[in-house]
């Protein structure tokens, strides 16, 4: 009887996982066609950003295509212009799901440039 119960339990746990709304719900902002293939970006965006940051800071090559600013331009929420403000914001949704801390926004702005300009127009 005990064995049967444990077997049932083992079967139930994955079922519960699969059945729940476990995948992150993401606000992709404007969205549209990404600069690279979407699946490739999911796996490699951190390498792209890391490469780009050294090119910009040390060599002054400010290519828009792979810049963090360009990511934010498309993917900041249309509601609050941010990629980190809410639990379903573009960066936060996946990163909290995967339990990976993002340090980018300790220094970098998480807002669209336009939104920042509007607030600081005075």
């Amino acid at each position, binding site marked *: 009887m005990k064995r049967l119960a444990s077997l049932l339990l083992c079967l139930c746990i994955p079922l519960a996982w699969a059945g729940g709304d476990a995948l992150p719900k993401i606000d992709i902002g404007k969205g549209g066609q990404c600069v690279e293939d979407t699946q490739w970006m999911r796996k490699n965006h951190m390498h792209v950003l890391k490469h780009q940051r050294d090119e910009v800071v040390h060599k002054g090559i400010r290519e828009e295509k792979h810049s963090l600013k360009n990511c934010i331009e498309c993917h900041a929420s249309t509601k609050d212009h941010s990629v980190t403000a809410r639990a379903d914001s573009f960066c936060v949704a996946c990163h909290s799901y995967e339990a990976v801390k993002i340090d980018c926004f300790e*220094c970098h702005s998480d807002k669209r440039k336009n939104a920042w300009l509007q607030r600081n127009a005075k």
Partner: protein
Amino acid sequence: MSESDLVRDLGRRNFFKTSLGVAALSIAPGFLLFDIAHGKAQPVSNKVRWGMLIDTAQCKEGCNDCVTACNKENGLPSVASATSVQWIRKIELKEASTGRQVSLPMMCQHCEHPPCVDVCPTGASFKREDGIVLVDRHRCIGCRYCMMACPYKARSFVHEPVTDQNPDVPRGKGCVESCTLCVHRIDVGLQPACAESCTNKAILFGDLNDPNSEISKKIRAVTSVQVRADLGLNTGVRYQGL
């Protein structure tokens, strides 16, 4: 697997290898063409050396426009506290024997041989090819050795958490920072915020390496000095009438 199967399989494998090579070759020029079509940005070069000439005769005592413009452009606190950062500051000098007074802005002098770069243990402090001395915040550990090394007291440490940064000027707690000569503006062909904001046109910004630039012509014509020239740092910022 029989011998004939093996031979056929190898043939197949070679076919795949060749076609992969051909595919790579035909894709690679595509990338090249993309770069040409979109104008791949070039790295900054040492053919340019950015610098400033500050005319102390034009700099008005009590005027703080350059400081205000710098704070606004770079998202620095507009109301200074004891621990807040300072990228540019106004100095009033008085010659004791004659009583002559001058007013001038002081900031990172963008040395050709910067002591801050010499002492940095992580390589965070560096000089860009075009002469701008910067801190790479990705590498800065906040040890503040560069602040000790700088003869101009140009650098500050960020003590407080920073919010609402200018998207073009990322900055945060735990790093040392200083005047970047508004590198984000220079890279898109604009002038530094202080030079643009100066109502008396006391700050002249330009390329010291170009003999035909306005700044080169002026430093050929008028007497200008580097602050602490005795240190042999060859600063990019020069002062007239000091």
